[in-house]
């Protein structure tokens, strides 16, 4: 799954990120934190889309659950971070297990629509359960550990958690389980014949994807010092799907690359116009029509062409 080139790219990306605090400015630091959070979110979705080939259109649900749970444990229950964050991730995984149990019974478009429906249920609960989630105004004023008020320390905290998470996902994609996932994506019937319990493997992938989305959500709640129902809305699920597609869904690093490109573009274009969504929509349209394998796919085909030319000249 993760080829050597991709692994090198990933290491270079994290080295580049680690250099950001040296700039000594606040703005690049904030941007780096955001794209690490959304990069992890996108990579978690890719476990479903890219690995097992299940199109989930409700992945934002777990992002929101992770964020709200962490916010609640921290602020209302006053738990320390090394308890609240694992607990929030655990709760997200349990929710993913329950929701996934129903969703993996269906495939393809039906699966996509059912995941969408569950995520809207999560949105509705977040929107209405004012006592716990703060309702439509959102959960504001999270009690965060003191070190987080220092942007550099918060950056390193995010960096560490995202790096470990990406490392775990890398191990997963190179493990037997990761290869089984790909077998399911390529041909579920054949995987079934080979003795793979397809439904159970899809459920496992669903839980793993949900748990990592929960980590991203918990980080976001610390970053914004709040959590809002929009983070579970279907447009949020759509946005993270765009990141996956833009980077390249059949590759390991694609999603994080997509997140980086989208964040940098959004920051840049928003300085000139308020109509960033129409730009994003147009980019998405072009990718869907002309480059369905995303940026990674484009790099690959360019690389292939160059190596062919090289061989011809030799």
């Amino acid at each position, binding site marked *: 799954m993760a080829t050597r080139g991709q692994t090198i790219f990933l290491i270079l990306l994290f080295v580049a990120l680690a250099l950001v605090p040296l700039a000594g400015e606040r703005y690049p630091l904030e941007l780096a934190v955001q794209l690490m959070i959304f990069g992890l979110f996108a990579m978690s979705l890719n476990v479903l889309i890219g690995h097992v080939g299940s199109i989930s259109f409700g992945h934002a649900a777990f992002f929101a659950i992770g964020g709200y749970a962490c916010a609640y444990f921290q602020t209302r229950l006053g738990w320390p971070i090394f308890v609240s964050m694992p607990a929030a991730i655990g709760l997200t995984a349990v929710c993913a297990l329950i929701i996934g149990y129903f969703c993996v019974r269906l495939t393809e478009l039906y699966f996509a629509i059912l995941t969408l429906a569950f995520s809207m249920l999560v949105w509705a609960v977040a929107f209405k359960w004012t006592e716990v989630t703060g309702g439509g105004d959102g959960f504001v004023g999270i009690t965060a550990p003191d070190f987080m008020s220092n942007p550099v320390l918060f950056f390193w905290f995010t960096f560490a958690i995202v790096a470990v998470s990406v490392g775990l996902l890398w191990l997963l994609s190179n493990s037997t389980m990761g290869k089984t996932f790909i077998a399911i994506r390529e041909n579920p019937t054949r995987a079934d014949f080979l003795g793979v319990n397809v439904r159970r493997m899809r459920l496992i992938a669903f839980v793993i994807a949900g748990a990592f989305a929960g980590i991203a959500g918990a980080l976001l709640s610390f970053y914004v010092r709040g959590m809002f129902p929009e983070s579970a809305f279907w447009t949020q699920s759509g946005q993270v*799907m765009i990141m996956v597609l833009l980077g390249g869904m059949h590759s390991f690093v694609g999603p994080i690359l997509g997140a980086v490109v989208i964040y940098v573009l959004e920051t840049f274009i928003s300085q000139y116009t308020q109509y960033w969504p129409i730009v994003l929509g147009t980019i998405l349209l072009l990718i869907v029509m002309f480059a369905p394998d995303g940026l990674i796919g484009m790099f690959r085909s360019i690389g292939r062409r160059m190596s062919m030319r090289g061989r011809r000249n030799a």
Partner: protein
Amino acid sequence: MFTNPTFMAIQVLNSLSLAMNLFIIASALTLIFGVLRIVNFAHGAFYMIGAYVLYSVVGSFGETDLGFWTGVIAAGVVMAAVAYVVERFLLSRLYDKEHLLQLLFTFALVLIIKDAVKMIWGSLQYSVSYPPMMSGAVNLGITYYPTYLLFLCILGPLVAIGLWLGLEKTRWGRILRAARLDREMLGALGTDVTKVFSAVFVIGAAMAAIGGALAAPRVAVDPGMDALVIIDCFIIVIIGGIGSLWGSFVGALILGFLTVFGTLIFREWEIVLVYVMMIGVLLVRPWGLFGQPEAERH
């Protein structure tokens, strides 16, 4: 309050008018899904275009009957033209691609249409009044009820019967049903399947826009109106069974009654109730009340 017959009659009529308005939109969504196998996220955006076109036409004609009904027709025509261009030049190239790409294509349309609407009409909230000929109320014996909403209650079943007759009794309907079952075989038998797809997408989009135009006097016309109606339509289609006409009719009724009575009984938790209901249906019948299981393929 539930023992007061007048009150109950009004609530039932409210449920029906909401349900029938949504049915017009959702039946088009299920039609597109049934034939093209595409989950059209842009359906809500099409609905929004319809409402805005009506607003503009009413604005230039003045608040007359002619203005209103011209606006409804214009909504359908404008949307059909846009949908034709979108289908011919873009969507038709994606039919043999992965579902994910088709789905994200319609999501791209959502983003683009939403901003385009903001550019053309601004971000303000508009309201449209009932057409003058239906601005009054009808005496139903038990209560008075707004004529326009009553009109929606009657229009819904008419649309349903019209669609059903169209699908069951005409040559065109036979082709559509065949396209739903086996598009390759239909093509092999000499039908131009691409034309069928194009027609279904255009008709479905126009129906969504007409539904939006008809909804305009009921709701606020603003650039956020698409986001929730699409979810309502998905719920209807999921409960009823994807691709089933009568399923979406029943689904619309269930959603209409749940929304109105749910609000009365559970207050703001009504919206959660709707999702719980939908998930309940799916647990018992994963393909909806009137849906058919997809081919066994894991």
